[in-house]
């Protein structure tokens, strides 16, 4: 059985409010991926569409996108796992190709978070977790990650200033990424200015600076087999390992609050399948919906021991020139986080890195890359390892 690889990647700019419909937004990423793969629509055997439905007005968007992309009569279907939807899509694409059912599968992730009003968004925010047993207390996504930040700080002595270092790094690379929504590099002094709104408390200990922003955006990833790839001029980046895991939605089902168990499990599976370890990773994209999420990812993926993730950021080891460059495209914190598009955007960044096409963000001689994409507060975790060979 041959390898499975990624032969085309595309991404729209991530913006606060896209001036167009969801099909037009998704088309931007689709067009870029098709041109990147040097394909025509006849080459695509099936489409997997990914988004978080609470932001969609369109029911069953996969049909709409397949039509707009000119991909009828090929099959299309929809997959959702909150913020990790599009890496779940890539996992399914891998299995469809590996099984021989299809040769070329497209994964189109999108989210137009501005599709609903901010009042509607505020109302939906409370339903992000267990609506029967948690939402009646007044929960929201930053509060859940804040409970992990609180747990990490109590256990390991991590500080708010440590977390700010992650935002600082993000802002530097966001400024270099023309697809990112937030492109202003920050200086460390900003975090000491109490009048700066970036320092406003959101949910203790997290502040505005610790949180990513909603965005509109789309991503597109084209997956194919080693055999079929021979018929195209583009050389794929190979999917070496895939790990996926889950954890309880309700926080009462969690036994630690200093790391995400599902991320640890997904990471182990991906490393085992790829036959590599954390020390072999040249570049990583991790799910930094909050600064604490990136810090936990360092530890959950084995880049640092539990409690020692702060050493990596303090020593700038996760910068482009460091031991393990992480989110050198600005991550979710600077790119923005259009739920269904985020995982595909992470995959695109790593593919570009492994091809040597990452421009100013290029990590030198990157040959093995990792994607860590989390749905909810570690309810869903997908880890993917990609390689040039």
């Amino acid at each position, binding site marked *: 059985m041959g390898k499975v690889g990624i032969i085309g990647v595309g991404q729209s700019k991530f913006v606060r409010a896209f001036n167009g419909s969801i099909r037009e937004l998704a088309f931007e990423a689709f067009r870029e991926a098709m041109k990147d793969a040097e394909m025509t629509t006849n080459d695509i055997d099936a489409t997997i569409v990914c988004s978080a439905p609470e932001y969609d007005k369109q029911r069953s968007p996969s049909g709409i996108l397949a039509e707009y992309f000119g991909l009828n009569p090929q099959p299309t279907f929809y997959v959702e796992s909150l913020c990790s939807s599009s890496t779940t899509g890539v996992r399914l694409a891998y299995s469809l190709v590996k099984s021989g059912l299809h040769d070329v599968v497209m994964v189109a992730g999108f989210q137009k978070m501005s599709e609903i009003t901010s*009042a509607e968004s*505020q*109302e939906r*925010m*409370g*339903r992000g977790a*267990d*609506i*029967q*047993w*948690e*939402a*009646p*207390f*007044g*929960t*929201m996504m*930053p*509060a859940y990650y*804040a*409970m*992990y*930040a*609180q*747990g990490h700080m*109590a256990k390991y002595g991590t500080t708010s200033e440590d977390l700010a270092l992650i935002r600082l790094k993000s802002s530097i690379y966001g400024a270099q990424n023309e697809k990112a929504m937030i492109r202003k590099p920050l200086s460390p002094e900003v975090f000491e200015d109490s009048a700066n709104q970036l320092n*406003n*408390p*959101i*949910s*203790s*200990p*997290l502040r505005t600076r610790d949180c990513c922003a909603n965005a509109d955006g789309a991503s597109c990833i084209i997956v194919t087999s080693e055999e079929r790839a021979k018929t195209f001029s583009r050389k794929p980046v190979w999917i070496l390992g895939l790990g996926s895991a889950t954890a309880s939605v*309700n*926080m*009462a*089902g*969690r*036994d630690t*609050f200093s790391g995400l168990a599902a991320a640890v499990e997904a990471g182990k599976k991906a490393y085992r399948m790829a036959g590599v370890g954390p020390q072999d990773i040249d570049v990583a994209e991790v799910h930094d919906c909050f600064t604490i999420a990136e810090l936990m990812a360092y530890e959950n993926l084995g880049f640092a021991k539990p409690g020692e993730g702060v050493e990596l950021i303090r020593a700038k080891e996760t910068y482009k020139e460091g031991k393990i460059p992480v989110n050198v495209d600005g991550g979710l914190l600077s790119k923005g986080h259009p739920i269904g598009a985020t995982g595909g955007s992470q995959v695109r960044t790593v593919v570009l890195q492994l091809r040597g096409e990452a421009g100013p963000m290029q990590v030198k001689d990157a040959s093995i890359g990792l994607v860590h994409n989390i749905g909810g507060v570690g309810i869903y975790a997908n880890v993917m390892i990609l390689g040039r060979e």
Partner: protein
Amino acid sequence: MAEKEIDSRFSKFGTVSFTGLTRVNDFIDYLQQGKVMGTRCKTCGMRFFPPRADCCKSLDSNMEWFEVEGAGTLQTYTTLSYAPTGFGQDLPYAIAVVDFGSVRVFGRLHRSIPAKDIMIGMPLKLAVRKLPDGNMTYEFLGAS
């Protein structure tokens, strides 16, 4: 409670309830009696909080209620400065996870605990509270 056409007791849970129908509706009646209850599978003994009607281990739906009692320890918490629609009037408020040994419980910290005194590891106990609109909830109170 006898079978009725619609048993929507659960719509009285918390500040804003998002669902009215569940097979563990008796939870609300117990709250009205001042008790926070979980369920235990009579077949295999597994305990659940939040309570559930069905056991994923034995696959039976033969549950009995037990009260979550005594002092637990604070596992983690956060104090919110922003809230979803319907909760703004409660700000600032803190949500927390408390470990009671056989089960962990997610809920709100009682506002009588000063922010500076909240410490992971501190002992807390459950207290039932009736909200001004008649809804029922539970909170964590200092236990020392």
